[in-house]
């Protein structure tokens, strides 16, 4: 069989090559859409001096914040620190370097990294602290900022459904950064709530083609923590 078998039994075989000093991209938004089993495996394996690219790098002591607590992280590229006391404390203490990127710029930098784009001009951040040290250019009467792509060694991705070819389908707002980070890493690991057989996903229903995915495994009983459980009264 010449076809690469992407299906693994769990995060262990998929993340075995993770080493000190590597860069890991993580999908999700806050604690929603996290590759919980991959994060737990990185915590167990214990590589240090990691760079994490993620919108939040965990929150409220959970998710990727576990790696911060274990002092496995040297550098974080993110858009938001609020609600993440571990990151705030280690950043304030100079233990972790933080590069803040506006959320849309972060998303597009990751997309560019996966799409072979060397940079892009965005209006976001012109005239702000984000523009420091970056080229600005006027194009058709408006000023733009040159932003460079982001890539990493590993991407950890959470999806609702996957198949043996690595095709993925996401669920609701658990999508966010997941399909983007999947495109931008040397090795992409997807943990899926449900692994279906080849051909079971309709081609039109695939959100991310398997070409971007190297390993896929099924994982059950995700915690899916809620940061703010807000409800309204029934009428």
């Amino acid at each position, binding site marked *: 069989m010449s076809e690469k078998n992407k299906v693994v039994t769990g995060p262990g075989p998929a993340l075995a090559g993770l080493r000190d000093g590597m860069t890991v991209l993580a999908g999700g*938004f*806050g*604690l*929603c*859409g996290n590759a919980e089993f991959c994060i737990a495996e990185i915590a167990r394996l214990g590589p240090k001096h990691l760079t994490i690219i993620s*919108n939040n790098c965990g*929150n409220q002591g959970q998710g990727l914040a576990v790696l911060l607590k274990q002092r496995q992280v040297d550098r974080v590229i*993110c*858009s*938001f*620190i*609020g*609600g993440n006391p571990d990151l*705030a404390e280690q950043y*304030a203490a100079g233990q972790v370097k933080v590069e*803040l990127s*506006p*959320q*849309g*710029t*972060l*998303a*597009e930098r*990751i*997309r560019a990294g996966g799409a072979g784009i060397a940079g892009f001009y*965005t*209006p*976001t*951040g*012109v*005239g*702000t*602290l*984000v523009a420091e040290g970056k080229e600005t250019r006027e194009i058709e009467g408006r000023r733009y900022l040159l932003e460079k792509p982001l890539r990493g060694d590993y991407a950890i991705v959470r999806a609702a459904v996957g198949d043996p070819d690595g095709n993925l389908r*996401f*669920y*609701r*707002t*658990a*999508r*966010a*950064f*997941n*399909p*983007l980070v999947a495109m931008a890493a040397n090795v992409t690991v997807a943990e899926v709530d449900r692994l279906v057989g080849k051909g079971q996903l309709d081609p039109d229903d695939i959100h991310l083609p398997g070409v971007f995915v190297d390993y896929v495994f099924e994982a059950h009983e995700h915690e*899916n*923590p*809620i*940061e*703010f*459980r*807000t*409800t*309204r*009264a*029934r009428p």
Partner: protein
Amino acid sequence: MSWSKEDMVRRAAAEIVDGQVVNLGIGMPTLVANHLGPERGVMLHSENGILGMGPFPFEGAVDPQVINAGKQTVTILPGGSVFDSALSFAMIRGGHIDLAILGGLEVAKNGDLANWTVPGKMTTGMGGAMDLAAGARRVVVLQTHAAKDGTPKLVDTLSLPPTALGCASRVITELGVFDPAGDHFRCVERAPGIEEAFIQQMTGAPVRFV
């Protein structure tokens, strides 16, 4: 008498034209949604990846994987859609969001907005604020007129790091409605009983009244 928070939120809701696509910032702007009945046909955008965001779910119907940008559990209305963050911000920067109502720390007379960080305080990061401020077709800022010690928050030039330059079309405060007009603020509405002289005293830049 100056407007209550509730009055300000209601006044902000009046900025929305029926059928518009609107992004509401975290904090007070989020409350604007309470004043948008379904008859108005307003589509709410949440930058983590929802167009057609609905109200908070009923108890017992909470889905941990349906959240807004403030990480609160929400719902998705019929006709709503979900998408990734790159597409979400393409909507914002690409001019597909008609209006963003954002919180503010300072607005300058030329429309410069500061709302993401205060030097010397731990930053939370800008999240999507810079993209929204730079990208939405119209930006309305909902904020208090002055700090508790009376320091104006409608100013001549920003003292805080900007979020975006020249982006704010309108500021709604407890004292009234103000449009940055280059070298002054144009006061287009005053809260009941608020004198022009008091507004000028509380504002860090010239105010002209209509």
